[in-house]
């Protein structure tokens, strides 16, 4: 009880602002006069949520977004991490490519959407390209930095103890660069998530971003708000379920991560 009670207390306190916002939102139309498209009532948003759950469109859009994110994440990191390690292992190659990578990382993401539309047309291809591109450059940059940050003395130590080839890789390079690689995964996911929503708004044909921007044209503000709430909740779930545990494990296994 002594451990649970403060947490329950915190939970109750933390819920308070949400309750207040909902109450204010409920009361506002009775207190002020404004067109309902500016801020639809709480009831309208709930009706919209129920309606889009019932006709399946909400689930469909959510799954479409998550699937794109997953494809982009797998393609981006699947190519970036091995390539990043390969580049970082040779100092000359790394020195030659670093400015190019730094530059491409700084434009990765949303800025590629217009070009992606030209290359792939509106739809799945363009959005996946932009997500994969964002995640690739964040991933490769962090992998290169991670491998390079392993001190030379550690290489010598491993070699002088008879470590060879694959052992250097599994015992030194991978654990040595892992903290930075995971940092890259998390950063790239945060940028990739923004690229997903933004990409769907400009180049999408379905998904949560598309749902929101499409609704603006018809002044269906309730759909826009529904989309925002979902985007917030999904990100919290992704971040807390995927990356917080991953970081915790890395901290325990390979030393501290501080954010």
């Amino acid at each position: 009880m002594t451990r649970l009670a403060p947490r329950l207390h915190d939970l109750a306190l933390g819920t308070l602002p949400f309750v207040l916002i909902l109450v204010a939102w409920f009361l506002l139309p009775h207190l002020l006069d404004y067109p309902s498209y500016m801020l639809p009532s709480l009831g309208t948003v709930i009706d919209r949520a129920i309606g889009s759950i019932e006709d399946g469109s909400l689930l469909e859009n959510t799954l479409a977004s998550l699937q794109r994110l997953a494809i982009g994440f797998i393609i981006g990191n699947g190519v970036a991490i091995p390539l990043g390690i390969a580049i970082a292992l040779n100092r000359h190659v790394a020195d030659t490519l670093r400015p190019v990578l730094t530059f491409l990382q700084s434009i990765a993401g949303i800025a590629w959407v217009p070009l992606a539309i030209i290359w792939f047309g509106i739809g799945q291809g363009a959005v996946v390209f932009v997500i994969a591109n964002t995640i690739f450059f964040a991933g490769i940059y962090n992998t290169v930095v991670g491998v390079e940050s392993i001190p030379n003395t550690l290489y010598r130590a491993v070699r002088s103890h008879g470590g060879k080839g694959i052992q250097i890789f599994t015992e030194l390079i991978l654990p040595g660069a892992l903290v930075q690689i995971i940092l890259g995964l998390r950063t790239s996911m945060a940028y990739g998530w923004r690229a997903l929503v933004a990409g769907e708004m400009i180049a999408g044909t379905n998904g949560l971003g598309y749902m929101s921007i499409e609704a603006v044209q018809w002044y269906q503000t309730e759909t826009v708000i529904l989309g925002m709430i979902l985007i917030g909740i999904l990100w919290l779930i992704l971040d807390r379920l995927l990356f917080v545990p991953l970081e915790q494990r890395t901290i325990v296994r390979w030393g501290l991560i501080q954010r």
Partner: protein
Amino acid sequence: MNAGLLTPATERFLKGAAGVLVLVALWQASVPLVGLEPYFYPSPADVWHAFVELMEKGILPVYLVDSLYRYLLGVGLGIVLGIAAGLLIGLSATASRILTPLINFLFAIVEVAWIPIFVIWFGYGFKTILIALVYVVLFPLLYNTLLGVRTVPQVYVNAARSLGATRLQLIKDVILPAALPNIITGLRVGAGFAFRGLIFAEIIAAKTGIGYLIFEGASTQQTARTIVGMIVMGLLWLFLDRCYLKPIERVTIERWGQVTTAEDRE
């Protein structure tokens, strides 16, 4: 190469420059091999001509100034509001416990998701872009300032108090410096997101600016202009990052101790 004559930094620079040149050369050489329409796959020469044209017509300088103005104003306002709110909330334990979940939730609704409703509320234009930028910067700063203030060791606060520090002195000399590494982390995160946010907001809601150039170039099939926009965007970000963000971080480290970045953990 005669590595003996060059300092390591010069050698790295030359190698890096060679990398950029090789990339541009490969790009130029690949154009006839790929054999696609210039609007689909423009060459570096096309991009250069587009750049010269945009400069001569005076379009690019105007767009660049517009983007920079929006960015600096939005980020500046976001920083001030974020730190102030973080301090105010952080100084009260109860206020932080009440508001932290809400802040986490608002931080999770990424700024791009707010843009549709900002468009409904404020229309297409400057207001929407500015508010979106303030939003992007505000939350990472608020979140990190709060974290910094809440993790100041109580002994420091007690020590300053027992030496007779007033509340203002306590904030200025103890809490703010102790929270500064976190604030800088928030600044870096916010400034990075804000830059992408600016480009996106300009694509959706502007008629000038680098984001608009990138989008408009593509939709009028002047793809070389799009690429000029992307290159200018990249260079602008590198300039801001190297000339402002990195030095601020370095000064903070020297003045107030370590800002933990991944490279430090050995």
